[in-house]
């Protein structure tokens, strides 16, 4: 479940700040204060980012907090990356080319990062990477196949997040990753696996400098857990200069980065926990980028001088889990009725200010293999009422909806939904859960209804659907179980033939949409709010910024 976006919201609040605080601050025009501050942001080679949080840990095997995403992308590199293209609607922005590319190996348009070339066996059971030679880590050690092997061994040994990546790519034991020679490494699996190649584009599958790690860890800590929590040993474009948790992290561009020194020398990731404050800092010119803003704040920025707001369709999804293990949501008609009763359009307008699109599917609509034609739940209370009657719930029922106190959009959506449901006799009790413990509520799977925000990082239909709808998946928080879906997903995972995979995942989507395990809400956009002179922003499906993309 790499993609856990959950930390996103989790951490906003986990760090000592009450969300409410925010906004106020941002009050409209805010001329004064920040005038003097521009010194910091104007220098051509410094980038200041107002972020909701500094990284908690720098070890991507354990930490999935917001700041950590940015840090991992700067400090480490993986074997592969997606090629980039201009965003079709926002030409100033770039994004990954994740479309299905039948003529490329693995069906994806990729370029080599740490890998110079790669070769996928036609049966999909083995891939061999030739590494770039002469690539240096931030400690000066040269990249070798041993580093790749050690990295995946670490994932096997420590479990946690790494275990997820080994599992989805079909690796069963450490020996499946083999050093062929100094610069050649191979991944070998028993069954054909469609993700064998794609997985190496993932933000959270970077390669470690094993020499440095072993040196630091010694025999006490063979996987250098302590060291990697606060330091880095990787082959990425930046090195960590300073990190004061809760305040800021400073990154310095590496002269010896294999792809050439990035344009921006110094990046300051400043923790500004309230979104309103981030807005102001950007307006006042004190920072170059303000991350994760609220819809109304984004709208208010559209007319601000020297500020550019780019908003693009993203891999985020927000929905409400309808727990199939709890009555009355064990009844498929009740779940359908819940969707007919959901005023999707109104929510997108009032809560998202149109900075989102309706969630009309069960995986990101920007991913290949997405099928949007199976959503048939346009707001219709009569239909909902009819379905409830059919399910024997004609007189309505009472249930609870849990929402995250740390996510400012959830409470308003919950109230709007409550108002709509009241009209068909369903009484919804709202349960506010502190951000710090919200994900326990989710993973418990004991709430009849609970919000969830997520984004599967790997742009692949099999991967996305398996996460949420395979009855054995850890992330299947709605307790959805359908034998046909399980079978289709298993078959998808066992073949590398893309045409078969697309057909099967499409069929799975049809069943899932029909059985409505979620109340479908929206695809919120990803918004970049930045200074006008900053160029090069690229949207990634991992929903983070990568410093090396920017220039002035």
């Amino acid at each position, binding site marked *: 479940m790499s993609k856990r976006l959950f930390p996103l919201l989790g951490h906003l609040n986990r760090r000592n700040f009450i969300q*409410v605080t*925010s906004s106020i601050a941002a009050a409209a025009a805010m001329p004064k204060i920040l005038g003097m501050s521009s010194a910091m942001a104007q220098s051509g080679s410094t980038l200041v980012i107002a972020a909701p949080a500094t990284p908690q840990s720098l070890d991507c095997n354990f930490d999935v907090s917001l700041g950590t995403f940015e840090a991992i992308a700067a400090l480490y590199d993986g074997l592969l990356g997606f090629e980039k293209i201009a965003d079709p609607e926002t030409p100033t922005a770039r994004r990954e080319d994740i479309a299905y590319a039948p003529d490329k190996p693995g069906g994806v348009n990729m370029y080599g990062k740490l890998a110079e070339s790669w070769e996928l066996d036609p049966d999909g059971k083995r891939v061999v990477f030739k590494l770039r030679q002469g690539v240096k880590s931030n400690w000066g050690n040269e990249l070798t196949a041993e580093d790749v092997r050690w990295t995946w061994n670490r994932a096997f040994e420590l479990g946690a997040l790494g275990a997820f990546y080994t599992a989805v790519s079909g690796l069963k034991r450490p020996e499946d990753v083999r050093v062929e020679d100094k610069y050649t490494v191979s991944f070998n699996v028993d069954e054909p696996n469609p993700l064998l190649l794609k997985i190496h584009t993932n933000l959270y599958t970077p390669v470690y400098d094993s020499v440095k790690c072993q040196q630091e860890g010694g025999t006490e800590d063979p996987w250098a857990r302590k060291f990697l929590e606060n330091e880095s040993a990787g082959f990425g474009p930046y090195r960590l200069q300073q990190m004061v948790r809760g305040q800021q992290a400073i990154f310095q561009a590496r002269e010896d980065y294999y792809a050439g020194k990035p344009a921006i020398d110094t990046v300051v990731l400043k923790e500004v926990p309230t979104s*309103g404050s981030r807005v102001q800092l950007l307006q006042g010119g004190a920072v170059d980028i303000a991350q994760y803003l609220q819809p109304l704040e984004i709208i208010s920025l559209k007319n601000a001088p020297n500020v550019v707001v780019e908003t693009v369709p993203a891999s985020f999804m927000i929905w409400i889990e309808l727990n199939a293990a709890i009555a009355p949501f064990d009844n498929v008609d009740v779940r359908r009725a819940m969707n007919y009763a959901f005023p999707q359009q109104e929510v997108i*307008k*009032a809560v998202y200010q149109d900075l989102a699109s309706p969630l009309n599917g069960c995986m990101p609509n920007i991913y290949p293999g997405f099928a949007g034609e199976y959503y048939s739940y346009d707001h219709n209370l009569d239909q909902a009422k009819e379905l409830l009657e059919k399910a024997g719930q004609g007189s309505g029922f009472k249930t609870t909806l849990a929402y995250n106190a740390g996510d400012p959009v959830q*409470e308003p959506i919950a109230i*709007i939904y409550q108002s709509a449901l009241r009209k068909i006799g369903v009484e919804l009790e709202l*349960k*506010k859960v502190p951000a710090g413990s919200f994900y326990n509520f989710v993973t418990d799977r004991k709430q009849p209804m609970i919000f969830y925000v997520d984004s599967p990082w790997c742009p692949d239909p099999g991967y996305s659907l398996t996460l949420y709808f395979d009855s054995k998946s850890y992330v299947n928080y709605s307790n959805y179980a359908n034998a046909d879906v399980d079978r289709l997903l298993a078959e998808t995972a066992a073949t590398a033939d893309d045409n078969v995979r697309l057909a099967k995942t499409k069929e799975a989507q049809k069943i899932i949409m029909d059985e409505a395990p979620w109340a479908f809400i929206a695809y919120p956009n990803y918004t970049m709010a930045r200074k006008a002179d900053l160029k090069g922003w690229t949207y990634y499906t991992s929903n983070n910024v990568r410093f090396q993309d920017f220039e002035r």
Partner: protein
Amino acid sequence: MIEPAKGPGPSSGEAGPEVEQSTSGRFGFFLAVLRARPQFALGYGIVGAVLLLAIFAPLIAPFDPVQASPADFLRPPGWPHIMGTDAIGLDIFSRVIYAPRIDLTIALLGTVISAVIGSVLGALAGYYETRRGVGTFFSGLIMRSSDVLQAFPVFVFAIAVVAVLGQSLQSIIMAVAFVNAPIYLRLMRSQVLSVRRLRYVEAAYIAGVSDLKILLRHVIPNAIAPVLAQLSVNTGWAILLTASLSFIGAGVEAPTPEWGSMIAMGYQNIITGHWWPSIFPGLALALTIFGFSLIGSSIEVLADPARRRTIAGELQRRKIPAAATRG
């Protein structure tokens, strides 16, 4: 804010001037006082109006206070939304007048519960304080426990109580009651300490009357006046505490109309210049508390024989026709 009202001595009930002895005279005097001190009348007026609005809210409110109409989000004050709408299209005016139903219920119940518990424990602590044996031990225990309670930072304590009991009306009432109880405990104890030294109590004790009877018949009735005076002041403070808890997110569940949570919800919108969702409920809140403190100070004046005399004298001088001028 948390200063216990300096209640008048145990003698307060007695020894008033003759001016308000007859029943009708009492009420007449009250009215005369209101006329002489218009700010008191204002207090009763405000609280009365708030109560009426709350009771008749379903008849007065132009919209359902919890029915969102997202199409009408953030409408500025105007017609038909005289105080505008909030971010999801709830009518602010309807919510503002529904809110006292919750706020006053919590505040009044919380205050009464704390007054009852606090007074009973305070009476026991005071009564047994100088007796030897178990009684003294327990009275010491009560006092030390209340020390501990009072040493707690109020909000942290109240939020913790709500967190432990779960977010519900009852737990907020309990939190308000817990936080206020020590005030009444101390007040009652100090009153009882002085009353129990009075002759008639000693006499009853010597005559072998049971402790319970002495407490109920002789001690508590003579010590209760300052507690009652404290009630009104405290209700205002309890409303404030309720709203504060909601503001911090430990109050009533959304979208129940409640002033504190309305301020908190609207707070997000001030940023974009939408001030009405939080300014109006704040005004209503402040006005209500203001009303309660005016009533509180009127009770303080009326319960204090010396000040009552002053007013009576003043009334006489002004020749205001009232029972007070009898004589």
